């Protein structure tokens, strides 16, 4: 019998070990021995900090911890492509970070679920909080059904980057703010030098570029009622042809890119790309480029329209530290320190109401034409947002890809995309 007993004990021990190993990590972890006066560890998950701005975020964290010595902010980063997969999985598994970044396109999905902490009550309890510190439209963008579920943290726009040296070498006049698509295409043709593998232009053929160029062509993505796709009309065809028409002529094809990560970034950095449609978050990475480069507002067609990306900070509905989460979210989005760091490092822009905080942005030397960032905000195109956002984006990108590779006519590709999107609405 003694042997049976020993076996039973061993079994129990094994089961206990397994159970301990499988117990999922709690949503928030207090430091060991953290009683009443212990430190609170607050997790923050972000996609916009890595790889170029981790140190800048660290500065903001350090300033926050100095003001809030009880709180220890632990930053976790993931690249944008993987970010939402990881966030979703951690929410489903009950291991979500206390606070995390969200973009405007995905905000509705998360706010509609019960994943986000309603910031109203914690805000009401905070006497130092003044909603007037934010630009009203930014704050409103992250309200859902009358409740504030996130605080706007940053915004950025897409502009036309250009390699000044390549333009001058080819004797092509530099881009200006009143350029149209025709001007851009004309310059791109003259700047493309296939023998030396220099390309004139790079504009990704995908959803985000399409909804924006559609807007530039004077069209709209969804009809007024928001329930039927409207992007396969003549303006849509014109916009898609503008994007697709560059591929293989002034821009490398998909096969030439060969699935290389950051292909366009590296192409521009190596001085082999004359014009590049990309976001102002690239400024920091280009600081040491060994050639002269600048930016202008993107060329328009019927009208000008620039894409705006809007990011916010939200807290998990299941965080054990709502007060600390609120304090951090507020600090990260509205404090002077955070605004200054974002400006000085040419990260993204803080959506603060106090315009004088933004003044320093124009004093940074590189690129010299950074006034274009503010000019681009005068006429913006917001992305269409629906509940099945990712499926819509994938459907449009896939069909545009078919058109770019010549597998379908532009019109047929757009019609097919419209059919798919109609099924998602």
């Amino acid at each position: 019998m003694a042997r049976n007993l020993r076996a039973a004990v061993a079994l129990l021990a094994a089961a206990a070990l397994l159970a301990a190993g499988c117990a999922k990590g709690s949503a928030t972890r207090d430091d060991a021995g953290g009683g009443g006066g212990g430190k609170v560890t607050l997790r923050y998950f972000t996609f916009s900090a890595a790889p170029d701005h981790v140190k800048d975020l660290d500065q903001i964290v350090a300033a926050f911890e100095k003001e809030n010595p009880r709180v220890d902010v632990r930053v976790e980063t993931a690249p944008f492509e993987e970010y939402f997969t990881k966030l979703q999985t951690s929410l489903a598994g009950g291991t979500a970070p206390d606070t995390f970044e969200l973009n405007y396109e995905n905000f509705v999905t998360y706010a509609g679920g019960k994943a986000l902490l309603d910031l109203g009550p914690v805000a009401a309890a905070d006497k130092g909080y003044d909603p007037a510190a934010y630009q009203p439209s930014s704050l409103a963008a992250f309200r859902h059904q009358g409740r504030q579920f996130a605080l706007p943290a940053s915004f950025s726009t897409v502009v036309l980057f250009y390699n000044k040296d390549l333009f001058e070498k080819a004797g092509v006049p530099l881009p200006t703010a009143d350029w149209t698509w025709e001007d851009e295409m004309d310059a791109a043709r003259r700047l493309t030098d296939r023998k030396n593998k220099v390309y004139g232009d790079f504009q990704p053929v995908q959803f985000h570029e399409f909804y924006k160029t559609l807007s530039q062509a004077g069209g709209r993505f969804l009809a007024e009622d928001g329930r039927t796709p409207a992007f396969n009309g003549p303006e849509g065809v014109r916009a898609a042809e503008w994007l697709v028409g560059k591929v293989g002529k002034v821009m490398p094809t998909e096969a030439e890119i060969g699935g290389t990560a950051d292909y366009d970034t590296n192409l521009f950095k190596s001085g082999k790309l004359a014009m590049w449609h990309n976001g102002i978050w690239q400024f920091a990475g280009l600081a040491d480029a060994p050639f002269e480069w600048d930016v202008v507002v993107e060329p328009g067609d019927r009208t000008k329209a620039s894409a705006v990306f809007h990011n916010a900070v939200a807290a998990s509905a299941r965080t054990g530290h709502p007060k600390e989460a609120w304090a951090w979210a507020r600090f990260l989005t509205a404090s002077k320190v955070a605004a200054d760091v974002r400006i000085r490092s040419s990260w993204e822009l803080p959506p603060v109401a106090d315009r004088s905080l933004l003044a320093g942005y124009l004093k940074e030397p590189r690129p010299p034409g950074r006034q274009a960032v503010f000019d681009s905000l005068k006429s913006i195109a917001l992305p269409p947002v629906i509940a099945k956002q990712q499926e819509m984006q994938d459907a449009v990108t896939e069909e545009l890809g078919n058109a770019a590779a010549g597998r379908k006519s532009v019109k047929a590709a757009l019609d097919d995309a419209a059919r798919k999107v109609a099924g998602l609405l």
Partner: protein
Amino acid sequence: MSAPPDTVAPVRRAGSERPGRPRRSRSARLRYAGIVAFFLLPSAIPLALFTLVPMAGSLWVSLHEWDLITPMTWAGLGNYAELLADPATRAAFLHTVAFIAGYLPLVYAGGLGLAVLLNRAMPARDLFRAVYFLPVITSWVVVALMWKWLLNPRSGVVNWLLGVFGIEGPGWWTDPAWAMPSVILASAWKDLGFVMVIMLAGLQAIPREYLDAARVDGAGALARFRYVTLPLLSPSTFFVIVISLINGFQVFDQVHVMTGGGPGGATQVVVEQVYDLTFRYGRAGDASALSWLLFAVVLVVTLAQVRAQRRWVTYG
């Protein structure tokens, strides 16, 4: 006091006692069963925790709408009905079948060919066997990335080599027509060694006398292979086909790394679809239902094979 009914021991029929096995008392038998159970635990606990429990969980999820963010809501069999009506489901299964149709013959013929070659006396035979087996134990991500580079239409070694012979190489995984062949090529290359090992074992189990007798009867090398070796290899062939078919239906890693289901959805296989539904589109309920549809298909196909094997598999 009446003894409790004996529920542990099987019903014993007269004369069914196996010879040579001493009769044990009931307590001894119980203790024996306990020891057996204890030794089974190390595999039974992980199996239950990491296979059976998640399976039950996915069955439960498949009956709900769940975006991983919002709490689940009951959907009954709605997800299954929706999937069966969705042309994307049919496309995913068709792509999977297309993969298997290319992969299975290639890996079987290749593995058998290698086994036959490496079953002869030759220098450095063990080294060759080890080398061909190496890809089997290599991580799929590594292999897929390597093939992606080899088959890069612009800068890959394969198209460069073809160019040397004046052939313009295809767009491989960037071309919808060539994307599936690219995945098949990489998959067959990786699994060749596995099939080779199974077939080698099968070859070595064939008694020399059979082949010698056939030779005496005047059978040539080809005839000996066709009428002696192949039939006697049928149990190994059966095993390889069953395993490869199941693996084929579950193809994912190489697709995910090499093409991500593209271009233009040309390699969107079932498990890639399950992944996209869950992690891209937040449709975990649909994804779980699709997994169970796949399970049903694999089960039916495997049962059909087990049934059919009676007709073509010869043992000994």
